[in-house]
């Protein structure tokens, strides 16, 4: 396969970027998208040019590192597939492919196709955890969880934090990501204790990090490689409304968890 690529090249966070044209020759349809870029980079290195910088880690669709918008769609044309799991057979010989980084104010470009997604980490740090007294491993099934709740929590926990939802959102909103984390913990008894505090803190942090708000376009669900659904955003909204009478209590959890558990 021979392809024409237009790739976003940007030397640094503050440098201006532009699309550069490259020819990818002799690409096998069995290659993954990232392997295709490896081939292009090898030829760039041979010609003495700077290779294209892109993020990758596991290359098996679970780490959420590969962050590329391919022809205007985060993670490319194949549904529920990360860039590393996208294969060149999804394209045709002679195709023109546009490759750009995630675009959002909260995700500044580091170089070429690599963006800084630590804003997601800061949302998690704000409340995406449960406070527990560590001790011995609890007995299996000591805490009974209805099957339906366990399934909901597992579905939400599928989020790999890749940021495709933010990249796809016309508002650059992190609602799907935040909603997945809020729903995941709110569905389980261990997470319910701090549910009200969590939803307030995490949505506040989302705003502070420069993400937009949700206009219910549902672009995020369509772009998500893990099939996280917008019904989790409805769940986040419910959790937020439930927390309203109490207001934003941003105080750290009290050391005695026995009292909070009664909520």
């Amino acid at each position, binding site marked *: 396969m021979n392809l024409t690529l237009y790739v976003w090249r940007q030397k640094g966070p503050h440098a201006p970027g532009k699309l550069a044209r490259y020819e990818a020759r002799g690409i096998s349809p069995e290659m993954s998208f990232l392997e295709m870029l490896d081939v292009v980079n090898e030829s760039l290195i041979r010609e003495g040019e700077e290779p294209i910088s892109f993020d990758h880690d596991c290359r098996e669709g679970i780490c959420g590192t590969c962050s590329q918008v391919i022809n205007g769609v985060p993670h490319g044309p194949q549904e529920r597939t990360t860039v590393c799991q996208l294969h060149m057979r999804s394209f045709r010989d002679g195709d023109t492919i546009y490759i750009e980084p995630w*675009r959002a104010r909260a995700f500044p470009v580091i170089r070429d196709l690599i963006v800084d997604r630590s804003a997601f980490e800061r949302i998690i740090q704000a409340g995406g955890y449960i406070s527990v007294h560590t001790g011995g491993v609890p007995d299996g099934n000591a805490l009974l969880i209805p099957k339906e709740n366990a399934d909901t929590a597992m579905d939400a926990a599928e989020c790999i934090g890749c940021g495709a939802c933010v990249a796809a959102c016309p508002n650059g909103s992190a609602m799907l990501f935040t909603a997945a984390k809020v729903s995941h913990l709110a569905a389980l008894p261990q997470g319910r204790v701090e549910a009200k505090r969590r939803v*307030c803190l995490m949505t506040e942090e989302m705003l502070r990090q420069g993400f*937009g708000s949700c206009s219910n376009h549902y672009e995020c669900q369509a772009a998500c490689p893990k099939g996280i659904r917008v*019904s989790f955003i409805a769940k986040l909204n419910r959790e937020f409304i439930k927390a*309203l009478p109490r207001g934003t209590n941003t105080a750290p959890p009290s050391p005695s968890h026995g009292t909070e558990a009664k909520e």
Partner: protein
Amino acid sequence: MRVLVTSQVGKKVLMAVSGQLMTLFVIVHMLGNTTLFFGGLNAYAAKLHSLLLLVWTARLLMLTALVAHVVPGIQLYLENRKAKPGSYAIRNSLRATFASKNMVWTGMIIGAFLIYHLLHFTFQFIHPEQGASANIDPLGRPDVSRMVLFSFQSTAHALMYITALTALLLHLTHGIQSSFQSLGLNTDRSIPVIVRSGFVVAMVLFLGYIAVPLIILLGILKG
């Protein structure tokens, strides 16, 4: 409760509640309009205006809802624009619709129309000589029918109303379903149902409203 005005999610909750209140008003208003088809508009208007408490409660509620809808709406629009600095070289919308992407613009058209509509039929500053308060019908009631019939005999005027109502159709097509999502009243099963029902309600309202200028313009309903 302060988070309702500071948080992004809180603002969306405010917009959803106020939007639903205004949608209810729009439904009642359209039902009221239908009295024109049966020659009962003057009777309806006279009865409605005799219920002063109801009229003023509704007016104050709608004014509050309008403020609670427009202020956070514009704030969020500006925030969202800032959050998405550049666009992609190729933009492929996966789910977003023309209606969902243009809420702020259809909203502004509706806002401008609302001012005109109030000046026109409520305060009767436009063509005051044809206004309901300037003419009474044979039963001694303000002649609202005459005012409406006169207004929509002008093609430009009728078209202006139809344009504004098209903006309302688009706004409600996305707005109704979106309000349920913002209030968390959604599950995987309800989402497609609410999306479709929202469109049907918006469409029925649109057809009900444009019927008035259309049948007058086409000469089906005469004075």
